[in-house]
């Protein structure tokens, strides 16, 4: 992961960067050779962005997928649901033309003038659509005002950094309150529609002018909607990653119960990544505690697929190479069946019904004898 420096998220801000982001990487440099290493990409779409040194335009949302093929100007992605999307429309991006700038300026002036009615209309529509129910009306109004102003500022300057920062900041505040992605996307799209309506109302007499204004407005508005949505999703993913990390660290304790005896209680779902982490921690624990016997208790694991079961067996064998004996306890009927179905050599696995039995056997192996004081006396 260190290969990919963290970059800013907008292709438009810095050509050459980021049309792809990847879970685990905030955003990556979209150099062809780098992308090939990624198992999965999240392609989202800015109107013009660079891909492998070439400008790619109209790159629309694709979702997560695997890169099948990538050449200078052609990108094929297999999406998660199996569809193959090909993106091969390339062209040099045109800088903002003189007329676009002028039209946008006119547009911004219009939006500034009608700030109050348009904003109220927007907030009304938000409440009507029952979005942002987690927030009070006043809060919605306050946030809407800042979003509106940042939105207009982004239209005016053509730079999205401020809006992006605002979006991230907003996400940080509202994610803990349970605001969903569809709500955020929903309100930004509502704003886009409300603004478009106000343009219709203003230019209804002059169809030509309306067309030109919309030509200038639509790409910019789409880009803004995108920036906000992507910012929100990325913030969410960041929070989720952080939590996963925390859970993982908490969930794999390797504990010493006696001299040279470790126990490793496993609770919850084991995915391949967690399985790998467990193994690593266990092997390291065996070395640092100089353990001879390890009891792995999987009472708290409800189900296990074949690959994880195999991993468990590998862990047992790897521990043996370090000179430690592993006792597995608390196998549920389902897991026992999985182990038999995948044909695990049970001769190598030392299993005991429950944790108590496992610890007793481990003590026997280590030569301990636990005696009640009364009996001993």
């Amino acid at each position, binding site marked *: 992961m260190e290969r990919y420096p963290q970059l800013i998220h907008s292709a438009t801000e810095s050509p050459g960067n980021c049309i792809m982001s990847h879970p685990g990487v905030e955003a990556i440099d979209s150099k062809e050779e780098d992308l090939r290493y990624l198992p999965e990409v999240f392609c989202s779409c800015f109107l013009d962005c660079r891909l492998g040194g070439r400008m790619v335009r109209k790159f629309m949302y694709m979702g997560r997928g695997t890169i099948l093929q990538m050449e200078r100007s052609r990108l094929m992605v297999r999406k998660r649901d199996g569809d193959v999307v090909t993106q091969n429309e390339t062209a040099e991006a045109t800088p903002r033309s003189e007329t676009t700038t002028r039209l946008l300026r006119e547009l911004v002036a219009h939006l500034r003038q009608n700030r109050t009615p348009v904003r109220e209309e927007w907030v009304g529509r938000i409440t009507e659509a029952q979005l942002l129910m987690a927030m009070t009306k006043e809060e919605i109004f306050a946030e809407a005002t800042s979003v509106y102003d940042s939105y207009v500022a982004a239209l005016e300057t053509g730079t999205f950094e401020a809006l992006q920062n605002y979006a991230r900041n907003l996400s940080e505040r509202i994610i803990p309150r349970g605001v969903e992605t569809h709500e955020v996307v929903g309100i930004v799209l509502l704003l886009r529609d409300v603004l478009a309506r106000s343009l219709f109302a203003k230019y209804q007499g002059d169809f030509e002018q309306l067309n030109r204004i919309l030509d200038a407005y639509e790409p910019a508005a789409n880009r803004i909607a995108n920036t906000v949505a992507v910012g929100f999703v990325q913030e969410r993913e960041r929070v989720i990653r952080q939590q996963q990390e925390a859970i993982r660290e908490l969930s794999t304790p390797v504990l010493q119960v006696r001299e040279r005896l470790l126990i490793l209680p496993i609770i919850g779902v084991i995915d391949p990544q967690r399985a790998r982490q467990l193994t690593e921690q266990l092997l390291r624990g065996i070395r640092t505690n*100089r353990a001879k016997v390890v009891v792995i208790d999987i009472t708290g694991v409800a189900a296990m697929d074949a690959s994880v079961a195999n991993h468990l067996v590998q862990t047992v064998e790897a*521990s043996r*190479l370090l000179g430690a004996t592993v006792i597995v306890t608390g196998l549920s009927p389902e897991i026992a069946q999985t182990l038999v179905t995948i044909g695990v050599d049970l001769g190598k696995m030392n299993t005991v019904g429950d944790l108590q039995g496992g610890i007793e056997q481990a003590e026997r192996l280590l030569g301990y004898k636990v005696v009640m004081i009364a009996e001993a006396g």
Partner: protein
Amino acid sequence: MEVPILKQGGFLIATVQAALTDADLLQLRRALVERVVQMRSYGVILDVTALDVMDSFASRTIREIAHIIRLRGAETVIVGIQPEVAFAMVQLGLTLEGVATALDLEEGLQYLNQKFKSAASSAKH
């Protein structure tokens, strides 16, 4: 690089010092198999703490060494396999079946001592 083989009581101790080539491994096998009878040893400890990679040839050779030495009438313990190496080996399916392993030299010595103590005591009866 040649692996030094030391005699310690009834045991031979071979400590790998650096990465081994295939030729080194074969040389080690030859030397150990010869020495074990020459020195009338009944236990061999092969210390691989210094190895941070173990390919299929190396682990096969080590397994062979252990099996040949058993046929020559002695017992072998492999000690000091690193955690990462152990896991990599298992993933490649190189599990050294039928070969005793221990955490480090001390554990290995203890294992052999125990083994031969019990053998000696059962011979007495």
